[in-house]
């Protein structure tokens, strides 16, 4: 493709457009954020989640207000750090250099404020919406923990913390989406979102590990710190890029991180979990789809942008974003349920943000940063409106709704503000960010020519459908009330106030976009740009530019197509049956895996000890051997081998004993010949001057013999005949295990860690001169024992815990057998 030929010099070239002008750099805020405020903002929701069950016992349904208060405190704490940039950290395990670091800049401030601010409104709304619903303590606790995880994603300064909080949002959203535990579809939705987002996160983790691996070459020492310190990855983006490219890892890292972000942000083809996620209670949907969860993915893209932006970045994310934007906008047109429509539109707008961040010019970053804010404002409003409609009209089916303006006048006005913003109609908030997208797509096409003209074309094409479904949603309030629709109640204040606040904010952004830009978008945009960011200047267009023309085409085509909305909808629905339907590949994969594991089970888990032993030993040996092969470890040559006559005799007897075990006609003979082997090994230890080992071996061998004798009469008297195939298979397995153990021993002893051995030899005994208290030395002449109880006492602690656990395990298993819990 010709796109790849983009000269990287222009990748981040400052561009002069109608909406974004000037190259003057905004003076960067240099004050450091207060660590206490950030850590408290992050910890509060989790602490709140912990005490929620207790609070619920005292307050009942008013727990919503408690949760809103916690969210508001977090919001206030984050907001108090407005204008600061920098990282704060607390030491966690100082000896290992592990610490929890948080970083605050424009982008993380924007996401944190959205998460906690919309969180406050969602809790207030829940107070009205969840009235009389089951499991409220669980609901508020999980929602608070979810909000905390999202704050963690936004504030984390290193990759490990980011990953942990990332997966925490997946886990907590699993609980939220599956809130209605009795409903099969709700559980299906929860499992689906969990599977897709968590597995996406694992891809991302591999990408993170590769980044950390490369950072060793680029920065001198391996680090997981992404941002915030002078030796972090983003502070040295150029060095990181060079190292990534020379290691051939640039594209793999980009793809892995993009998979993680795409799974979270519901990009095609991983968007399938998002429509099902509407099974959650509506406040949760509003929260997941606007300010959190899906925003984590685009946040990651924005955060990684200074590090990875370039030709490949644009090709991958620009395409991904625009395809998602168009496909899911079409699917939204085909929706039959208002929440389904909004869910697909969420995916579509996330596509827009991804595409914006994807374009390798500054306008693209402006698009992403600005649309994160705009989308959160109008989408949260619309979901809350959908909740009001479902709550007060009793249905969510689009075909059954209409003329709601008569019964819900205030809701109608806020819907108009939000829906027109979503449609991208001036002067509502979504218009400005969509203009930026058009402008940046046009810019890219203009620079590259050729196939790159598809970018603006697809952007306009997708936006037409965005316009169509936005107007369709607004039309729920227009026209005549259908006969089937019963009485529609007025919503309570708790239900109405949150969307009014959000729509008010959206309106302010629409009327005075520059205010929003100066307040927060400019600094968020700056975080997503490599190098100096120019000053954003956003206002209504006053002259005809390509972007204005594109907006005009979008709106006019939308108006022209709207009479054919029903036909379009039916067409989309016909197309999305069978293999083209969203769930097809997901269902096939999941149920296919389930069937495959059902088939494998009878072969692996037969309930017979020998089968388990064969699988365990075989697989362990294979993995170990494969590991040696992959690491290119060769069997070391052994020298200094002194074999004396006694050793030869002892080992010969041991071999005879081992061979005799396989030929033993009965259990008694088998056990006794096995003991011969064991005692010979003990003798070998004696000859090798290892009295401790010999003693242990002798005593253990005796005890094993005794235990064998105890259980002997419980076993069948005769082994039975095994056919040749089985014998051959067992022989191969035994040989393989023997080979693995031999190689392992040779490899392990070849390392001969002299330094460690010398340390023990020097430190174990009592030194020649000493005081009456000796702490630095072991103070014992039995070096084995001193290692066990002093130098490596922690290991021994673990081992005796294992002995205790084994005893408890045997006791529990035997006790349980009487209860018929195992078949």
């Amino acid at each position: 493709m010709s796109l790849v030929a983009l000269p990287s010099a222009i990748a981040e070239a400052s561009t002069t457009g109608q909406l974004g002008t000037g190259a003057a750099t905004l003076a960067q805020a240099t004050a450091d954020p207060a660590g206490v405020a950030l850590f408290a903002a992050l910890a509060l929701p989790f602490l709140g989640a912990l005490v929620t069950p207790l609070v619920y016992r005292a307050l009942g349904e008013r727990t919503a207000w408690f949760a809103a208060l916690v969210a508001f405190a977090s919001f206030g704490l984050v907001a108090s750090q407005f204008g600061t940039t920098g990282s704060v950290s607390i030491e966690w395990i100082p000896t290992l250099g592990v610490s929890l670091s948080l970083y605050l800049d424009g982008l993380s401030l924007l996401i944190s404020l959205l998460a906690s601010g919309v969180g406050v409104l969602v809790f207030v709304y829940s107070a009205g919406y969840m009235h009389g619903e089951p499991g409220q303590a669980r609901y508020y606790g999980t929602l608070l923990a979810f909000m905390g995880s999202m704050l963690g994603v936004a504030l984390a300064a290193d990759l490990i913390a980011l990953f942990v909080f990332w997966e925490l949002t997946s886990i907590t959203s699993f609980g939220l989406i599956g809130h209605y535990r009795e409903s099969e579809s709700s559980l299906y939705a929860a499992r689906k979102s969990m599977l897709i987002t968590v597995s996406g996160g694992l891809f991302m983790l591999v990408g993170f590990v590769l980044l950390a691996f490369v950072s060793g070459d680029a920065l001198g020492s391996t680090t997981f710190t992404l941002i915030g310190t002078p030796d972090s990855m983003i502070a040295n983006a150029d060095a990181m890029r060079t190292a990534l490219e020379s290691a051939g890892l640039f594209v793999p890292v980009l793809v892995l991180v993009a998979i993680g972000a795409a799974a979270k942000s519901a990009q095609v083809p991983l968007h399938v979990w998002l429509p099902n996620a509407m099974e959650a209670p509506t406040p949760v949907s509003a929260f997941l789809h606007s300010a959190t969860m899906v925003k984590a993915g685009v946040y990651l893209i924005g955060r990684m942008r200074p590090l990875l932006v370039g030709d490949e970045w644009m090709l991958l994310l620009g395409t991904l974003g625009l395809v998602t934007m168009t496909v899911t906008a079409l699917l939204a047109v085909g929706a039959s349920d208002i929440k389904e429509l909004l869910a697909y539109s969420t995916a579509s707008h996330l596509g827009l943000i991804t595409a914006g961040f994807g374009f390798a010019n500054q306008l693209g970053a402006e698009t992403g940063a600005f649309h994160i804010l705009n989308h959160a404002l109008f989408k949260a409003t619309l979901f809350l409106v959908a909740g009001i409609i479902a709550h007060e009209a009793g249905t969510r089916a689009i075909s059954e709704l209409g003329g709601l303006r008569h019964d819900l006048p205030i809701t109608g006005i806020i819907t108009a503000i939000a829906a027109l913003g979503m449609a991208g109609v001036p002067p509502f908030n979504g218009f400005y960010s969509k203009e930026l997208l058009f402008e940046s797509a046009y810019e890219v096409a203009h620079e590259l020519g050729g196939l790159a003209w598809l970018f603006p074309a697809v952007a306009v094409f997708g936006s037409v459908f965005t316009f169509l479904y936005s107007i369709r949603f607004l039309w729920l309030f227009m026209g005549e009330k259908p006969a089937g629709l019963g009485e529609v109640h007025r919503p309570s204040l708790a239900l109405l106030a949150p969307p009014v606040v959000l729509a008010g904010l959206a309106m302010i952004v629409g009327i005075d976009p520059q205010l929003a830009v100066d307040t927060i978008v400019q600094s968020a945009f700056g975080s997503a740009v490599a190098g100096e960011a120019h000053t954003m200047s956003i206002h209504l267009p006053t002259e005809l530019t390509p972007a204005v023309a594109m907006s005009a085409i979008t709106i006019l085509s939308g108006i022209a197509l709207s009479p054919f909305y029903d036909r379009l909808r039916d067409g989309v629905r016909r197309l999305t049956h069978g293999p083209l339907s969203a769930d097809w590949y997901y269902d096939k994969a999941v149920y296919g895996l389930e069937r495959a594991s059902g088939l494998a089970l009878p072969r692996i888990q037969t309930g017979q000890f020998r089968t388990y032993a064969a699988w365990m030993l075989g697989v362990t040996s294979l993995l170990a051997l494969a590991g040696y092969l992959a690491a290119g470890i060769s069997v070391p040559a052994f020298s200094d081998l002194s074999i004396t006559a006694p050793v030869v005799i002892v080992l010969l007897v041991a071999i005879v004993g081992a061979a005799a075990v396989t030929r033993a006609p009965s259990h008694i003979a088998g056990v006794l010949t096995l003991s011969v082997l064991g005692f010979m090994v003990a003798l070998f230890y004696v000859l090798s001057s290892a009295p401790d080992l010999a003693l242990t071996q002798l005593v253990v061998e005796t005890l094993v013999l005794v235990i064998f004798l105890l259980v002997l009469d419980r076993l069948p008297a005769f082994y039975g005949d095994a056919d040749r195939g089985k014998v051959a298979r067992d022989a191969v397995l035994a040989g393989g295990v023997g080979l693995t153990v031999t190689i392992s021993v040779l490899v392990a002893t070849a390392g001969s860690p002299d330094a460690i051995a010398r340390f023990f030899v020097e430190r174990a005994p009592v030194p020649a001169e000493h005081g009456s208290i000796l702490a630095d030395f072991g103070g014992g002449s039995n070096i084995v024992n001193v290692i066990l109880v002093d130098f490596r006492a922690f290991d021994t602690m673990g081992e005796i815990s294992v002995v205790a656990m084994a005893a408890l395990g045997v006791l529990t298993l035997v006790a349980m057998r009487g209860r018929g819990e195992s078949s």
Partner: protein
Amino acid sequence: MSVITRTVTRVVFPLILLTALALLFQGHNLPGGGFIAGVLTVAAFALVYIVNGLDYLQEDLLGRTGDDVEGGPAIVADFLNVFAGGLAIAAGGGVVAILLGQPFLSQAVLFVHDLPIFHELELASAFVFDLGVYLVVIGGLLTILTVVGDE
């Protein structure tokens, strides 16, 4: 079991226990230690168990009466206490090190001079840990032995 085995067991049993204790005490400076001593002690009990039966071990030797616990004979409850106590001693000794400002499980040695007979005695804090190991091994293995043997 024959009279000979029973008589021999009677004589050997205390000797094994004594050997085990010797191994435990000398472990710091000579071959031995908590683990070996523990396994040897268990072997002594196992011998009594096989020769004289569980009831003899439980009632005559260890003086335990009472109902069976879930999953095994009554004596198992005592064995559980033994290894729980052992774990507590081992971990507790480690915690003492923390209280003294040292890392968990740090050990030290104290030399006591001018004693009668011994003249100089070396007291190792590691012995406390070794005692814990000894008790855990005895309790854990005897639990397994009794429960499995009872089946």
